[in-house]
């Protein structure tokens, strides 16, 4: 009985692990473009937080302007690079895209 049960379990496991119907595909490797879009979202979120904290009265106008312009510069640099990569030919994008 025990032997039969163990055999059945083994067969079920082997069937599950090795029976792979259909085509399989791993996702693409992460590109620099994808990374930059993530960074853009992070900087935008920082900007949203900054605006909100300023409206909540946590810091004065001068501090706000200084931090805002610094974040905007960071965002602009990211946007500029995204735009450059999006304009670049596929071959260049692919070459730069892999394993950054």
């Amino acid at each position: 009985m025990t032997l039969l049960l163990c055999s059945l379990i083994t067969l079920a496991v082997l069937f599950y692990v090795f029976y792979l119907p259909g085509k399989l595909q791993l996702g693409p490797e992460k590109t620099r473009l994808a990374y930059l879009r993530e960074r853009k979202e992070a900087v935008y979120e920082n900007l949203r937080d900054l605006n909100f904290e300023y409206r909540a009265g946590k810091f004065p106008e001068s501090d706000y302007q200084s931090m805002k312009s610094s974040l905007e510069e960071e965002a602009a640099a990211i946007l500029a690079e995204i735009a450059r990569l999006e304009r670049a030919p596929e071959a260049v994008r692919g070459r730069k895209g892999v394993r950054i």
Partner: protein
Amino acid sequence: MAQIGSFALLLALALSAYSFVAGLLALLRADGRAERLGETARRAGIAAFGVVFLAAVVLVIAAFQDDFSIAYIFHHSNRDLPAPYKFATLWSGQEGSLLFWSLLLSAYGLVLRLRHKTDSRLFAHASVIIAAVQVFFLLLLNFAAHPFAIMQGSLPEDGNGLNPLLQYPEMVIHPPMLYLGYVGFTVPFAFALSALVMRYPGEKWIHITRRWTMVTWGFLTCGVFLGAHWAYSVLGWGGYWGWDPVENASLLPWLTGTAFLHSVMMQEKRGMLKVWNMWLIFATFMLSIFGTFLTRSGVVSSVHAFAQSSIGTWFVVFLTIIFLVCGVFYVMNREHLRSEHKLESLVSRESSFLFNNLLFLVACFAVLWGTLFPILSEWVQGHKITVGPPFFNRVMIPVALLLLLLTAVGPLLCWRKTSIESLKRNFLWPSLGALAIALFLMVTPVSWGPPFAMRPWREISSLYSLMAIALSALVAFTVISEFIRGGRVISHHTGQNLVASMIRLAHRNTRRYGGYIVHFGVIVIIIGFAGAAFNQDREKEMGFGDKMMIGPYTLVCRSYTQEDKPNYGSEWAIIDVFKGDRQIDTLYPERRFFKASQQMNTRPTIHSTANEDLYLVYEGQNEDSGRPIIKAHLNPLVMWIWVGVWIMIAGTVIALIPNAAAAVRVPAPVRVQAEPVGAGD
């Protein structure tokens, strides 16, 4: 039954080994077959969960069937053991708890492998790392600590029974919580190491593991405090934390895990501290393994170390391998972890996170040093030098107070740098409030009792308590001011009342405001700890009608009685408790004699209020006079600790809820010609 369990463990080992090897080959190969190989590896990892689960079920069934042919069941159960403790047999001993570790790890692995489409390459790497950890535990289970080992010779009639200290309702949930925490750190570790191995660009792996880490941290927090509550309710010494090596073992990964939860924000927001965060999560995982090693190897003497065995060498080898693997990949890929920004000012949110992390690491090192010192001293000098609570208190109290100060200060500082005007704007009222509370506590009359009437100039413990409460008040005021300020902005935009606006605020940024609620829970706990400076205790032989006074209470012994139950015999005192002339409670401190293990165990009884706990222990009888001895402890503010834990849990749950959509629109930044953005490589 034992054969099925043994078979399941062997099959699980084969599947995990396959998942590791095939997964690794799939990642190394670049041809068209790699996907299929990787998929079989993923499926083998999923199937491993099924067979480990089967092994665990078999062990639990064996416990319920009193199958004493299995040595583990014989050593950790008996026929009259109540059903919940028979279920808890799974994690009551070394072999079972390692099986439980493996089960939880395979469960975490199952969830991870089912969610692989989020980022299939990153998940494939993490899956291989989890399979490697799983192989280690299954090797242990199959070859060093087999839970299905068969008893030699004739079958015993009954088992040895569960350790009496573990026969307490919380023990059914405390170990699973702690293990969910320990094991759960494998997931962020696996993702961090994967990101390093792959030179994964960006911080998405942190986003993916954020909830894993918080859930894991939440479980570990619950586990640590359930352990403290169990010690308080069962061990009968009147305290909840004794700096026992095994208690410390659970605290170590909690400290580094907490540091990681904070510092990881700097990486997400500013692309900073990448190396630091990587090593923090590596250290947290290694400390989790180290904690399991301390609990299970018997290398330290502890009331919690429920095992003496030779598996220590396995853990040392495993820890060494982990360290080497992490070290090698760090050296190879450290350039990938280059920081994107530099620290601009010492007065900034970044620096507060940095100091917070340094303090957590100091605390971690102090606890580690104190825990290992007896072992190190034995190696060096040949005899053990024990490091007791005075050492830990001397180091940890100042560190905790500084951390509390940073908890108050950090959220009010700005990213990058904070001007003097900002500091004044944010700190004036909270500081004045905290100062007013400190003064109030110092000038209140002695008749008010603890925690009022503090006289910090008389003794250091009183000074520490006062500082703890004043800094807790500062944290509370800053948290409240954060909620009110944010709530006002929402209220201004939506026209909702302030409370509704604050709820909406928390929903918009659950991580931040959930975090503040966790901080609030922490200060409630700290206030509870501060009460320990005013603990009192009395001990007296009490016959019928005898009285004992402690604090505002008068205890009158009404009677003693006995009872015989299938699992244990017990005797207890019946003590009437009076406050002034009014009887407020009747308490029943108890001693139990567990038949299977032939061990005596005390069961304290507690009258708990927000102000103080009256904690009674029936210590047995005076050998000369034969009169029963009752020990009473008066422990101020202990209830605050348990309430604080519930608040922390609530905050963690809130932090796990997804954010509601942000209503504030951000204007598009000006486009400029700029240098390429730094990105790991």
